[in-house]
């Protein structure tokens, strides 16, 4: 049994977009019985916070120089391709 996975959710200001995305991911994963820790940050903060993350989900481009999966998507805002992205997230959280 491992602990909860950590998802880092990034956007431009860490105020609006990542709030929507974090909430949507949390709900989608909860429906699948997966409980995670979410943390929001600005895209510019990703390099300094990435160490603790198992997965990074971002709406804006980010640079990550570590071996952590990054999913860049607008699906949680636009609805386009949302189911596929949720599957990607579920897959990325598997050990």
């Amino acid at each position: 049994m491992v602990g909860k996975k950590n998802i880092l959710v990034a956007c431009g200001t860490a105020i609006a977009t990542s709030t929507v995305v974090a909430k949507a991911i949390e709900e989608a994963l909860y429906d699948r019985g997966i409980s995670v820790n979410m943390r929001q940050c600005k895209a510019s903060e990703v390099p300094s916070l990435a160490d603790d993350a198992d997965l990074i989900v971002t709406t804006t481009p980010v640079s990550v120089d570590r071996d952590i999966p990054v999913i860049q998507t607008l699906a949680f805002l636009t609805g386009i391709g949302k189911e596929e992205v949720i599957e990607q997230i579920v897959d990325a959280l598997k050990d």
Partner: protein
Amino acid sequence: MESLGKLLVESAIILNYPAEDAAGVVSALGEKLYEAGYVKETFVEAALAREKSMPTGLPLLGDTNAAIPHTDVEHVIKAGVALATLPQPVIFHNMAIPDEQVEVKLVFLLALDQPKTQITMLQEIAGVLQDPDLIEKIMQIEKPEDVLGYVSEATK
């Protein structure tokens, strides 16, 4: 929880606005929020700068694309949302791919003071963005007060 219907500022709803470009829309909406006491004088400039470095254009499912410009909380006095519909699209840039252009006809300018308390409103905006039929109806509304009623009803 503060809903979108409550946070939309009636005096900051500009319908069928003949905007020349994205900056023109953001400025016009930001001025309205400033006049109504929602944002500081620095807000418009900050929102424009942020839009340049981190754009907010969103290509949507239907024919109408949207943008959700916003900026840091320090430029905001209290939470409010301004809205513009444009008969002719203006160019924003794609949030995910900043080099890519998005032709936008619906703009929500967000003045946010704290993220957590505005989650309901943000989710409702995402709900609107994901509903092409609702967007087409909003695009046809002619009076600002009708937008408030319509959005409050639609996001119930």
